[in-house]
């Protein structure tokens, strides 16, 4: 048997659920009988280690999801995810990247809005934590912009900055679960926007006003200051627009995510 064939059979056997004896049989006959434990038991050490390691990765990337939905929903979700998305990367860091999408279509959770939103939030925290460093603009940046430059002024958001729209009190629920207390789960009257970013090394999150969310999205889309001001007209009388725009920009500079 070639090494390639042996490796393909071994990995199929590791992936196989323990009930899939066919895959195991293909591989088992290659193994020595040694000591008191059988080739089947030896194979199951690898099968268990494989699943345990990936469960461990999901647990650490989503510390509150399991607490929210309980073992009866969490274990089948993890197991189905591991089967659906075996790792193709040298690094295990991004193994869970598809879980926020996967949970939306997972039968027993697809209508479980709080689980879907919490999963999305936890993965965003993880992504932001490891995002590329960037140099934030200085807090006095705006003071040095000449007047004629303002209309065409554009900004960039730091790597790892994200906006999330939650229809439930997701962050509150997450905080309660983090403290091991029972969350009170509520549907909000109006969806709330949250921003997640990293200030130096610390991952931050904060809810944002409706006009603020709209402007942050516009910045993410590459629009300039003039566009931002026009957008603000939806909420503010014309004479107050420059003040609000300036106030928001200064606020964001203080939070350290404009680059």
């Amino acid at each position: 048997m070639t090494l390639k064939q042996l490796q393909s059979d071994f990995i199929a056997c590791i992936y196989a659920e323990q009930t899939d004896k066919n895959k195991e049989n293909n591989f088992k006959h290659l193994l020595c009988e040694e000591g008191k434990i059988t080739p089947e038991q030896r194979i199951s050490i690898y099968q268990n280690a494989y699943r345990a390691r990936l469960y461990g990765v999901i647990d650490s990337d989503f510390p509150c999801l399991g607490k929210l939905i309980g073992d009866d929903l969490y274990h089948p979700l993890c197991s189905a995810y591991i089967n659906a998305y075996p790792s193709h990367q040298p690094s295990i860091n991004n193994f869970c990247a598809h879980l926020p999408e996967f949970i939306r279509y997972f039968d027993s959770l697809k209508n479980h809005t709080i689980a879907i939103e919490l999963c999305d939030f936890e993965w965003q925290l993880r992504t932001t934590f490891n995002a590329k460093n960037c140099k934030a603009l200085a807090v006095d940046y705006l003071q040095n912009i000449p007047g004629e430059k303002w209309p065409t002024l554009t900004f960039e958001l730091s790597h790892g900055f994200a906006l999330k729209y939650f229809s439930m009190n997701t962050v509150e629920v997450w905080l309660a679960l983090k403290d091991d207390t029972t969350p009170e789960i509520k549907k909000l009257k109006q969806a709330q926007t949250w921003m997640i970013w990293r200030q130096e090394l610390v991952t931050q999150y904060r809810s944002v006003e409706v006009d603020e969310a709209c402007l942050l999205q516009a910045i993410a889309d590459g629009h300039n200051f003039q566009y931002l001001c026009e957008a603000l007209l939806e909420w503010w009388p014309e004479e107050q627009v420059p003040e609000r725009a300036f106030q928001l920009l200064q606020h964001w500079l203080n939070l350290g995510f404009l680059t």
Partner: protein
Amino acid sequence: MLVPTKKQLPYPCNQKPFHGFGLGLRPEYYHAILDQEPNIDWLEIISENYLVEGGKPLYFLDLFKERYPIAMHGVSMNIASTDPLNMDYLNELKQLIEHVQPIWVSDHCCWTGVNSHNTHDLLPLPFHEESIQHISSRIRQIQDHLERPILIENLSSYLSFKDSKMTEWEFLTSVCEEADCYLLLDINNIYVNARNHNFDPLDYIKGVPQERVVQHHLAGHSDHGDYIIDTHDASIAAPVLQLYKQAVEHFGPVSVMIERDDNFPPLEELLTELDEVRSIFNVAQDERKL
């Protein structure tokens, strides 16, 4: 029996760098190590933990690299796989090497995946000529690409193949000599395999090329009676420390460190364990000189 030809090594046996007694750097200990500046001679990082774009891991890495010699230990080189080498991974690793300037770079004599799948586990393979040729030519390519020799580590395993034509230590010796690379000899893994595959661990220690052994690992395991699992979640077992003493008597001074990856105790406990390793080393060295 394969008779490998001896090759010229960058570190001849009497000039191997000895860095003393180290610890595996894990995020759980970042603050304790920085605050206490404890008696640790060097640190080993898991390279993959720092193959991220930014944030805390790289920030801390920079702090540690100013303070300690660092060895880079990887888990994803997939050396023995029949897939093509992952050049993206090797390029990223090379960048990290340039940044860290480690004392050396290591990975495992095993494969982790095939057909572009990754199990993130260290998987064994049969000990025969085809494996030796396959692995050693890949190590040569890796060393050429990284422009430096690497260390390969022996792994714990829970099964063995009927196809094997030699012992694990004969296999490892041939790979190292064919590839012209170094050995990171994990003493716990030797003990684990001796129990799982029923051989004398001293035969293993005496069977590998002394001049190529540059580093030792020590770690805890879980003993299930009929078999042992390499878990790194407990203190080093007494028979492993005993075997370590025999290793020092045989190999002389080799840089050594403790790997702890789960069930993390306070740093003080690991330091006490490291002191115990130091005193075993000193006793063995004294006995060696007699």
